[in-house]
């Protein structure tokens, strides 16, 4: 079965995020006063084959820990969806 997986990786709360800060600064200097907050994160879209949702989730969990997220400073979240089930 094929699964569509969406992983989001973002900075942990309280960790300095210079990139989002710089973007926020640019938005201010562009004069968009209506923008109150901005934060940036990474998203990964994967297609994974597997026999079960559980098996794929295990793979994703490992991938996040080993590769996609730097768990020292980042958190990750993911959603796994059977693409054939629809």
């Amino acid at each position, binding site marked *: 079965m094929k699964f569509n997986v969406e992983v989001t990786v973002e900075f942990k709360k309280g960790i300095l995020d210079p*990139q989002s800060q*710089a973007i926020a600064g*640019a938005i201010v200097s*562009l004069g968009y006063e209506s923008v109150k907050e901005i934060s940036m994160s990474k998203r990964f879209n994967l297609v994974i084959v597997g026999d079960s949702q559980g098996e794929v989730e295990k793979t994703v969990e490992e991938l996040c820990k080993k590769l996609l997220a730097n768990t020292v400073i980042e958190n990750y979240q993911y959603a796994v969806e059977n693409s054939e089930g629809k």
Partner: protein
Amino acid sequence: MKFGVVVFPGSNCDKDAEYAITTLGYSCEMLWHKDTDLKDVDCIILPGGFSYGDYLRAGAISPFAPIMEKVVEFAQKGGLVIGICNGFQILTEVGLLPGVLNKNVSLKFHCDIAPIEVVNTSLPFTCSLEEGEVLDIPIAHGEGNYYIDSEGLKELKANNQIVFSYHGVNPNGSVENIAGIVNKEGNVLGMMPHPERAVENFLGSVDGIKIFNSITKWWGDNNA
């Protein structure tokens, strides 16, 4: 002839550009990003560095600096503008040059002295160089991988807009080994290599002088 070097927050080759220009005996004004006065300069240099930290994309935030509105106007009226490294990235982001500069294929910053070949000698920036001549010019960048779609590339070639190409090794994966291009009109140059770093023998090359001398020669010929 008078050069102007724009100082963005995070520029770090602004002083090197000034040093090269003044060492070669030309005059130089520093242009602060928050100002809107171009101080009557004849050629504007957008220097290398990490303007606004290169956050989001290299050069992405600089187009909104107050001075840039004037720089764009100046360029559109035919004024000479050179973007070196981060300056090249800014010129593509602000739309004065086509294409974009992606991350190096190695995903790593790369510093070296790179041989580059002169492709077009009909420009103010290259008029005293020879076609096919190879210059040794330092490179130092993490996002120098020039990309343009095939339509755009055709147009670049048709208009003879490719100015420099890497000779031998392509250090970043850029399309057609492109190291520098001009706009259609030929007055705005963007290049990843740093000619301002090749102006004294002990620095490893003096080939950068040839580029500065071309510009001042062209200026002299056209404004005498």
